[in-house]
């Protein structure tokens, strides 16, 4: 679109409404009809991303479910598939990394990378962007943008057509951003409304406002957004360390809801994962438990350990707590080692702690238990009548919330 500078630039690849697209893979017939991502169970009844057909009917992402159905009675609600979406996104990131892009994913459907290195690899910025779009997969209709600033790259990718790569040179950055809507800015919904009430509807209009007035009226977030709208420097790309997640899957012959069976399945998966040579003795720091449920929905929970450990008993205990949250019988169970610690050993203490240090550690441990489980989680056994012939009269459990 614009003349290319020789400076390495920041590139963004965007797949709009990624979670909806991921969920629609299970129901491809809904692509052309008004459909929206259903609210998450137990959350505020707001619809998620919507299909173009739903948007034509006036349904907007974030709209209240009742309002959306009143606006479009034929609206199809698509059940969320968080595990499927995460898996699809991980696959896209891996394909990008396999193509040589050092990616920084920021959310599902949005990823940044630096053009330095890949430009030489692919013979220029535009071929590199085309390669990135191909790696993401044309079925996802990705769009790419490149600019010297992160925000400008993201804006370019957002306004690009499916499969298009839009390059914005630095000297044209402000004029490119000026006509774009405020909704591109990372602001709360109420802030957009504040600005629209003031007659500010585009990035250019915001950029023309005096800095002091914006900061006074909208606070630090508003000042930050003002800087973005003016094309100010907003940081580089911090690529992630490429990960090769270790995972094991177990498919049940029929749906399983029995917690004991599920626990045994998790134990078997854990044993298989811990025996994998790729782990190289490193203890897991973060694990993910995934299930395909009866009816086609998916479920995923992550467990981050306070201290990395490869002790099967501790890992089983941490994972078992999550199994209780399974909302329906499972057809398939998958366990994934998302993150491994770098060290393979544990630094032990030369001298055993005692006295005040030990007491302080105990208090800290109790504080963490209370923080995790809530008030009343820590109790003390107080003997009141140890001589009693009535067993339950001998001792009391007294909550300790001090």
């Amino acid at each position, binding site marked *: 679109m614009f003349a290319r500078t020789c400076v390495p630039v920041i590139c963004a690849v965007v797949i709009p409404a990624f979670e909806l697209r991921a969920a629609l893979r299970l129901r491809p017939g809904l692509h052309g009809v008004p459909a929206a991502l259903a609210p998450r169970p137990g959350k505020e009844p707001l619809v998620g991303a919507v299909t173009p057909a739903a948007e034509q009917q006036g349904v907007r992402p974030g709209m209240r479910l009742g309002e959306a159905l009143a606006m479009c009675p034929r609206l199809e609600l698509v059940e969320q598939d968080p595990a499927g979406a995460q898996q699809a996104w991980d696959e896209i990131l891996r394909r990008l990394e396999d193509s040589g892009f050092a990616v920084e994913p920021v959310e599902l459907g949005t990823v940044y990378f630096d053009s330095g290195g890949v430009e030489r690899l692919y013979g220029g910025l535009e071929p590199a962007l085309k390669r990135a779009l191909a790696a993401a997969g044309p079925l996802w209709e990705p769009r790419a943008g490149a600019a010297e600033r992160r925000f400008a790259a993201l804006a370019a990718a957002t306004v690009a057509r499916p499969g298009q790569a839009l390059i914005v040179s630095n000297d044209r950055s402000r004029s490119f951003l000026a006509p774009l809507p405020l909704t591109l800015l990372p602001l709360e919904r109420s802030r957009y409304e504040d600005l629209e009430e003031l007659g500010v509807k585009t990035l250019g209009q915001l950029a023309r406002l005096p800095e002091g007035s914006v900061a006074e009226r909208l606070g630090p977030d508003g000042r930050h957004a003002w800087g973005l709208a003016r094309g100010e420097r907003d940081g580089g790309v911090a690529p992630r360390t490429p990960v090769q997640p270790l995972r094991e899957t177990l498919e049940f012959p029929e749906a399983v809801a029995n917690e004991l069976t599920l626990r045994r399945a998790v134990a078997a998966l854990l044993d298989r994962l811990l025996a994998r040579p790729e782990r190289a003795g490193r203890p897991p720091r973060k694990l993910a438990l995934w299930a395909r449920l009866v009816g086609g929905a998916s479920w995923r929970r992550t467990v981050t350990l306070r201290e990395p450990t490869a002790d099967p008993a501790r890992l089983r205990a941490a994972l078992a707590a999550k199994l209780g949250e399974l909302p329906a019988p499972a057809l398939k169970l998958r366990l994934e080692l998302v993150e491994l610690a770098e060290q393979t050993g544990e630094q032990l203490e030369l001298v055993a702690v005692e006295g005040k240090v030990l007491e302080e550690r105990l208090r800290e441990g109790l504080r963490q238990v209370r923080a995790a489980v809530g008030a009343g989680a820590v109790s003390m056994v107080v003997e009141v009548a140890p001589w009693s012939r*009535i067993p*339950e*009269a001998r001792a009391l459990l*007294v909550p300790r919330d001090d």
Partner: protein
Amino acid sequence: MVAHPGSARAAGAARRLNAPRPALVEGHADGGPRRVNRQDVVVVREEWRVVDRWWTEEPVARRYFDCVLETGENVVVYRDDESARWFAQRA
């Protein structure tokens, strides 16, 4: 403090340790347990009575049985004479 077994407990308040839990018990004609929680009783190792607090408004009158079930599990149950109900409890 001996509250009636099965009474509701207040959140955040002190709780009894080793509180009795309701048990499903089928008895013999002599009053001893034949099946506990759908498991046959193989042997009754010990039997004793606890009669206490008869001078209060909450008297305790229980007949305890230390049983071994067909699964090998060891369980202690008692019949509460006041309510005519069975409970399990670690004695």
